[in-house]
């Protein structure tokens, strides 16, 4: 069984990228990284100094290509997740077709925000996990609870070695009629809830979900509520783009929608000539 946290030698090119002077764009640190820097303060510097040891191992210090929030909630028939399709490289919008929601096995959906390459690595681990499970061929399959537990262990163990997978994961699924929605953070914090959000979604989407979520939402109502949250995120999160995917999972199976855009409203009369009479403000 592949152990997810082997050490490996890092090619010299990556080390050059870690130095801000060699990076292609002189962008300021993206949000998560700045927050982690501030939170860790002295710790971060100490880790950096000892990051490169004799046999050439390195640990993840900052995220490079990041995805923004993912929102998820339970509804009447199952679980529904939504995320936009942007991958930012610092303050540049580098990739505009990143699929940040994937299905895992028959029963689960995984959405991730944070470092995209770490998400791809997690998908590889889960692929192997599901494969090994299928090879038993005993009629049992891994449900969302099991996958959530596996991810929690992986994330927590990586964090203990100071080499985290820089993601906030949302895992939703339905198995034997039981709906499940949980979240795992990059330091291993995990919990289960009726509605979850990562990143900026915590500040902007959570208040709306707390006020308006109900147990028995139909699919259309759930999509409407999710789109309400996505629109607020589009207006107020700088790394969000107007290209979303909504994914739903029910007892029957998984559906991930085609990318689509939301209609934004800019027609306030106050926006027509905002500094009329107040020259100097905007």
């Amino acid at each position, binding site marked *: 069984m592949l152990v997810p946290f082997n050490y490996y030698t890092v090619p010299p090119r990556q080390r050059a990228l870690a130095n801000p002077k060699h990076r292609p764009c002189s962008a300021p640190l993206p949000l998560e990284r700045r927050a982690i820097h501030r939170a860790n303060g002295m710790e971060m510097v100490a880790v950096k100094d000892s990051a490169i040891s004799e046999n050439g191992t390195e640990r993840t210090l900052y995220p490079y290509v990041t995805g923004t929030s993912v929102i998820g909630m339970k509804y009447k028939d199952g679980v529904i997740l939504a995320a936009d399709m942007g991958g930012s490289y610092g303050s540049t919008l580098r990739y505009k077709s990143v699929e940040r929601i994937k299905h895992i096995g028959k029963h689960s959906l995984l959405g991730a925000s944070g470092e995209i390459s770490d998400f791809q690595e997690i998908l590889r681990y889960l692929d192997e996990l599901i494969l090994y499970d299928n090879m038993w061929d005993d009629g049992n399959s891994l449900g969302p609870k099991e996958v959530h537990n596996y991810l929690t262990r992986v994330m927590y163990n990586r964090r203990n070695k100071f080499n985290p997978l820089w993601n906030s994961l949302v895992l939703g699924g339905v198995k034997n009629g039981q709906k499940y929605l949980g979240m795992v953070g990059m330091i291993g914090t995990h919990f289960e809830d009726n509605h979850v959000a990562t990143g900026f979604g915590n*500040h902007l989407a959570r*208040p709306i979900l*707390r006020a308006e979520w109900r147990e028995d939402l139909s699919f259309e109502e759930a999509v409407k509520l999710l789109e309400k949250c996505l629109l607020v995120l589009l207006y*107020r999160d700088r790394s969000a783009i107007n290209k979303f995917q909504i994914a739903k999972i029910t007892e029957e199976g998984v559906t991930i929608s085609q990318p689509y855009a939301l209609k934004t409203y800019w027609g306030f*009369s106050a926006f027509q000539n905002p500094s009329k*009479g*107040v020259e100097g*403000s905007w």
Partner: protein
Amino acid sequence: MGYMCWSSEIAYSGGMARFAADVPTRGGFSFDLCQRNEMLLKKGNQLPTFRKTGTTIVGLVFEDGVILGADTRATEGPIVADKNCEKIHYMAPNIYCCGAGTAADTEAVTDMVSSQLQLHRYATGRESRVVTALTLLKSHLFSYQGHVSAALVLGGVDITGPHLHTVYPHGSTDTLPFATMGSGSLAAMAIFESKFREGLTRDEGIKLVSEAICSGIFNDLGSGSNVDVCVITRGQTEYLRNHQLPNPRTYVSSRGYNFLKGHTGKTGEPYIPPNPRR
């Protein structure tokens, strides 16, 4: 002495006292004390921390005027210093200002500009305009380069119509149909962005403002307690202090506290209530 001291302290240089009034005014900013501050920091003198308001304040323009809203919690780090403070400050009979950031800064700045507006009203004989308050605030805050930590939502109705502005600590301003500031601004803005439309009636406006403040109160740790609302229309202002009390104190005993007779001494003097604020 290598530098001159512009502060109100009397500096003795070569036996000669220098008062701030004696020295001729120069143009531009005076950064004389920056060197001293850096030296003090290097020596280990930390600046004292400020008491912040950790707030949710909002404002919106409805069909007849402007509605301002605020929560009532003032925090000192992790402690709630004041459970029921007033964050909606009086500027003029037709202009009110919500303040977030350092409590002392918002109080002082709004009081100062309020006095200046009163003097201006005496001089001109006219009702104050919101842009006047805005310009006075932004020029004061800009000259202090962001060190006066006051983030304000200024709203009012004057002869030119209803106005709503936000003022940031560094002195920039925005003119908006709806605005939120403070630590709970994202929670409140989520409500506004999903539910605001132009031409709201008075009751709809008050309901939306209360909802946004409640969203800040329940989803942000720096905001809490009650909802204050202020409705400003042409010719009339209504200050609804504690419009909603969504965090009532629930007693363990349904009878409340029971003080037996004789536990509190009485002086026999009549009770005179303090002067009510205007």
